[in-house]
């Protein structure tokens, strides 16, 4: 995915001067954004930058919120929440096809469960599943509707680091097959680079940066261009890389498993002598974290 598959497609999302306020505070302040069909956009931002507000506006979940501006989003939107949000009293298959009005709903539900590696578990209850498995069901529930736009609000934030790596690969595979436009909200720079065609940084309700990810697959942490992009994004997020230790302070915006990646990753400015050795020779665990099946 080195090029932008969606660059010339029609716009799935068109946002012009979007404003959303809570109690007089402008959380989104004249936001402009276009997402094209089939394009995978990661939305980075610090806490309170307006990421989730934007997502909720696109999902039409922001009732009773003050706001103005133009927003065009397709009717068929699916949302993946941070929690899997499965109905505990429905079996997996019934959760997947919830609200799906199609004559072959059950068949499609089975296929979607098989796609996320849960074939044969149709009659299981959500409590019987691990956190990663539940999030896979939630992905199946979103994709079985064949949405034109997939919204994901930190979908892997609650998962452990190893499960998250597997989920990244699964999400890439599924998106390559179903080709929805994707808007992935995350605070993890590495996750954004690993998954997206384009990374947008949100700051104080506006777009602070809009950078294409022109990296060949697999996107390893040590690959040329990777560190530069990472540093630029961190810079836009207000992380000053010239001071040792500053990176982990400002960059770790929550996010378990965030710290080690930051420590190990080479930085352009080069800080402490101990970190020098990391440049050009990324530790094995970090490499596997960034690897994406082509």
């Amino acid at each position: 995915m080195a090029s932008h598959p969606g660059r010339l497609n029609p716009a799935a999302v068109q946002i012009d001067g979007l404003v959303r306020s809570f109690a007089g505070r402008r959380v989104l302040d004249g936001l402009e954004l276009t997402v094209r069909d089939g394009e995978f956009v990661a939305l980075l931002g610090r806490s309170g930058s307006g990421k989730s507000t934007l997502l909720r506006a696109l999902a039409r979940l922001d009732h009773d919120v003050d706001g103005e501006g133009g927003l065009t989003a397709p009717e068929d939107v699916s949302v993946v929440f941070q929690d899997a949000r499965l109905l505990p009293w429905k079996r997996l298959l019934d959760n997947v096809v919830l609200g799906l009005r199609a004559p072959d709903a059950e068949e499609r539900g089975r296929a979607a469960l098989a796609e996320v590696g849960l074939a044969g578990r149709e009659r299981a209850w959500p409590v019987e599943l691990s956190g990663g498995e539940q999030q896979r069901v939630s992905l199946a529930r979103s994709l079985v509707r064949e949405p034109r736009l997939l919204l994901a609000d930190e979908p892997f934030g609650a998962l452990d680091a190893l499960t998250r790596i597997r989920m990244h690969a699964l999400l890439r595979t599924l998106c390559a097959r179903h080709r929805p436009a994707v808007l992935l909200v995350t605070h993890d720079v590495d996750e954004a680079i690993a998954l997206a065609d384009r990374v947008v940084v949100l700051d104080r309700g506006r777009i602070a940066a809009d950078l294409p990810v022109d990296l060949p697959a697999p996107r390893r942490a040590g690959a040329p261009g990777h560190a530069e992009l990472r540093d630029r994004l961190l810079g836009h997020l207000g992380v000053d890389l010239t001071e040792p230790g500053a990176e982990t302070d400002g960059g770790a915006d929550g996010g378990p498993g965030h710290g080690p990646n930051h420590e190990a990753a080479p930085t352009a400015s080069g800080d402490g002598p101990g970190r020098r050795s990391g440049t050009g020779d990324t530790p094995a665990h970090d490499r596997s974290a960034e690897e994406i099946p082509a």
Partner: protein
Amino acid sequence: MSVDAPTRRAVPSAAAAGAGNATKARPRRAAGRRLGPGRPVPYGWAVGPTLLFALWVAGAAAGLIDPRALPAPWTVAATASDLIAEGRLQEHLFTSAQRAVLGLLFGVAAGLLLALVSGLSRGGEAVVDGPVQIKRAIPSLALIPLLILWFGIGETMKVVTIALGVFVPVYIHTHNGLRAIDNRYAELAETVRLTRAAFIRQVVLPGALPGFLLGMRFAVTAAWLALAVVEQVNATSGIGYMMELARTYGQTDVILVGLVVYGLLGLVSDGLVRLVERRALSWRRTLAG
């Protein structure tokens, strides 16, 4: 710090006493620090009742218990079998069960209906919830004089009294269950574009089911309580009447038979509700079962 110092001084002496001693003592101290209740006693639930029963048997056999106050267990058993042989116990039991079931039926229906009206719409809540809360403040049994004036002393009064006692817990817990539906599920339902009817059917009602079943357990208890009271007021049949009659003749053994029957009815009905609960809420059972 002052606490620390003696401990530190004690360490070398413990080491001098022998390393084997120190390692042995450690797990014992860890066990002492545990604050949980520990492992359950096998058949623990039966220990207390068995002890009590044994005490009764021993006291009666040794002649320590006045049979007029508390007849021996075998006397009670003999009286029970006599009552069954004469067909009186069954007759009274049937009458009592009929009243309880009817009262329960009407009470649950009313409680459920009102809870749905008030739980599913703000307007319904404004109309229904206040009166129910007022009714809740008045003990159902205190309404008996009024109900006797309205319905007479027949079966209607008895069934109405039981129903009034039953509907409150059903209403309270079902309403609570309906209102406590997680807003995140409402959001989910919006994103998958469920209709309002489908939302109620697939999300709200199943989500409120645990609350309703909890209300049912309280309702069953309330039904037996109300039954026991109304059967001692102007009744000419039923277990309560049988006991009340026995009181006038000083037949303690018959009263005890009645109490045992009430106890069994309570246990069986609670067990039934729990069985339904286990079936209906099987999704809550974890892998451990």
